[in-house]
């Protein structure tokens, strides 16, 4: 890490679920944390920010880099989920919003963070996708398409930056026990969980541990997808 002091991580969607678990784990490990979320997050630098707003993301990332002297790792966890919608019933607004948050948010974060990393020739970006992007799904096509687009984005950015020391990879969790999954979600039903080799939802801390491993010992991964998914997609 090149900041000299404790390393720095910027996390989008840091106020809840996987983002919050990631912030908590990095913090416990001595990292300084910057959180970007619509709501305040439990981080060293909590910034309310809409990831669909490129200028706002840029300002927030610049503020974090200025405050901490650089950014060693960025984690794009901002997102939301909608299920149970047939393809013909997904409205234009639902489609656009999902793409803007998940794909656009990841693009905006990468675009804001990479100049700092390129300037220091150091850093790693870890994008949160989903096992649904690998295995496909039904009645949540806008979410799956957006998460799939994240795979293409990160793999291509990883290839583009392969000759630099900057690494980009993806974590594609299985259904995870976060507030994104409604209490009556299909993915919480015993009949579905019984189809998983592990027989249970993934825990946010398990996704965070995967992110942390990539950030700290993942120098040999370039454009890869790591899947803490309880066996949902093998």
């Amino acid at each position, binding site marked *: 890490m090149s900041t000299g002091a404790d390393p720095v991580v910027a996390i989008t969607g840091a106020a809840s679920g996987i983002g919050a678990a990631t912030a908590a784990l990095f913090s416990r490990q001595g990292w300084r944390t910057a959180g970007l979320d619509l709501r305040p997050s439990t981080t060293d630098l909590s910034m309310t920010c809409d990831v669909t707003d490129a200028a706002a993301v840029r300002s927030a990332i610049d503020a974090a880099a200025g405050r901490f002297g650089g950014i060693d790792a960025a984690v794009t966890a901002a997102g939301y989920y909608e299920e149970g919608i047939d393809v013909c019933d997904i409205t234009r607004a639902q489609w656009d919003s999902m793409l803007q948050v998940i794909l656009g948010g990841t693009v905006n974060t990468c675009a804001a963070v990479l100049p700092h990393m390129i300037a220091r020739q150091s850093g790693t970006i870890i994008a949160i996708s989903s096992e649904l992007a690998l295995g496909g799904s039904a009645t949540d096509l806008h979410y799956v398409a957006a998460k799939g687009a994240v795979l293409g984005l990160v793999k291509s950015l990883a290839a583009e930056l392969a*000759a630099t020391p900057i690494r980009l990879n993806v974590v594609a969790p299985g259904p995870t026990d976060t507030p994104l999954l409604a209490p009556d979600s299909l993915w919480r039903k015993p009949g579905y969980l019984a189809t998983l*080799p592990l027989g249970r939802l993934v825990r946010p801390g398990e996704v965070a541990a995967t992110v942390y*491993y990539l950030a700290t010992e993942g120098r040999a991964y370039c454009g*890869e997808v790591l899947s803490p*998914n309880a066996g949902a997609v093998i």
Partner: protein
Amino acid sequence: MTAVNGRPVAFVTGAAQGLGHATALRLAADGFAVAVNDISDDGRLAALASQIGGLAVPGDIADPDAVTAMARETAGHFGGVDVLVANAAAMEMGPFLTQDPRTWWRQVEVNLSGHFRLIQAVVPHMRAAGGGRIVLIASGWGVIGHPNATAYAASKAGLIALAKGLGRELAPQGILANAIAPSYIDTEQLGVDAADAGITLDEMRQRYRELIPTGQLATAPDIAAAVAFLAGPGGSAFVGQVLQPGGGVTRTRA
């Protein structure tokens, strides 16, 4: 998990050198009691076992009787086996059409069948302890293939399928099986490759770097870290996965 003075037990095959050696060191540093295997002990295995306070269990993975004996000795010594790292491997390069069937079967026996039997020998101990981890060291060549390495690639692809099948079959019992498919690693094997190719070690390194998108050879500790992740608390949601810390060599796979 089994406890040897509070430490879980790991069994690493092919540990005399290279990434097996690095893996044994890493797991020991992470708090495991470690049994280390290689085909024979020329002194390096005993030295490693001594260094990490572990147990040397030399023997040929391709020999079913030896496999039974080493599993029994490890479980007897430590009281169980919680983690198996299947790393021992045989590789012999050559054109497919003229390959001697004996070289084919040797690679399949060591890399795939030998570990299949070793897994059969250790899983009852994992079951008895209520769970365990199996980490199969496959190869990037088992993912994308490689000319003149068809037997090796096939055996390693078999290990990947074995990890997926075992993952599905054993996860309900708390035993998590996964694979790691490294690509070009800076280990003693590079010297063998260089000798085969009739070039210097540095020339070999450079030739491999040109095949890697990042231009960086992975190190044995990089791969050992992947093993430690899958074998440790962070790997508890991984089932039947194939980690590919190869600098992007396999990135273009379908």
